[in-house]
């Protein structure tokens, strides 16, 4: 069981680290999709099937398409897909910050005495999940729906631009 987790972790970490260090932005996005599917596989491993399918559909299907469209819409020529590497000083400090955050979290997780899990893989049938969503969590569900609608309308308004933009200027 731990071997599965190790393999999943390796795939997730390697693909995301490679994705965010590559210069070609299209390849980065495709590698990130692999990393998102790895995370969905982690959810499956943990017994959260519904979250796994939501992750695969939303990230692997929707977000990846939106990102690829953004990449295509913001590139004027073939060379625009190549992002220049960051300056050395910024890269070093970013790596220090990321390493420090990861180190602190990992050290805390290792030093904290968690009770060993006694139960097996838990199962939460979709029926129970639906009852929870339609019962105690109904307010949160409605707020999320309103948020998604507002975000969709806002994204359309921002991306469509104003009349002035289309007519000219820079």
């Amino acid at each position, binding site marked *: 069981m*731990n071997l599965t*987790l190790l393999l999943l*972790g390796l795939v997730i*970490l390697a693909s*995301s680290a490679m994705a*965010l*260090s590559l210069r070609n*932005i299209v390849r980065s*996005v495709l590698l*990130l999709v692999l990393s*998102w599917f790895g*995370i969905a596989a*982690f959810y499956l491993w*943990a*017994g*959260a099937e*519904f*979250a796994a399918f*939501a*992750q695969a559909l*939303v*990230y692997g299907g929707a*977000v990846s398409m*939106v*990102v690829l*469209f*953004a*990449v295509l*819409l913001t590139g004027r020529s073939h060379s625009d897909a190549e*992002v*220049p590497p*960051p300056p050395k000083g*910024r890269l070093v400090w*970013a790596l220090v*910050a*990321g*390493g420090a*955050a*990861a180190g*602190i*979290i*990992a050290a805390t*997780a290792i030093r*904290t005495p*968690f009770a060993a*899990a006694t139960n097996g893989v838990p199962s939460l049938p979709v029926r129970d*999940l639906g009852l*929870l*969503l339609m019962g105690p969590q109904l307010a949160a569900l409605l707020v*999320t729906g309103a*948020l*998604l609608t507002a*975000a*969709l309308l*806002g*994204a359309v308004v*921002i*991306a469509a*631009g104003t009349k002035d933009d289309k007519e000219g200027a*820079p």
Partner: protein
Amino acid sequence: MNTLQMCLVLSGLLFGIGLAAALARSSAILVLMGVELMLNAANLNFIAFWRFGPAPEAGTGVLFVLFAIAVAAAEAAVGLALVIALYRHQKSIRLQEATRLKG
């Protein structure tokens, strides 16, 4: 190190990768992807604690992840719309060049 701790270490490393990318890269799209990775790392934690926690039948971890995925999708949509608006104004998505609020 038990399995829960391995999950937490994995999510910590993923968060670190996302943070480093968000700080280092200058392309607005890659910065957004770094933020998405950090959100995913938080989701891994929710699932791990739900899986190894004392009361998995309550389903709070899974519910929180579902809502977090919905919010992350909204964030990605608005963020990428902003990237396109930024590109329209200055013909570039380098964040160093985004120094004006009014186009």
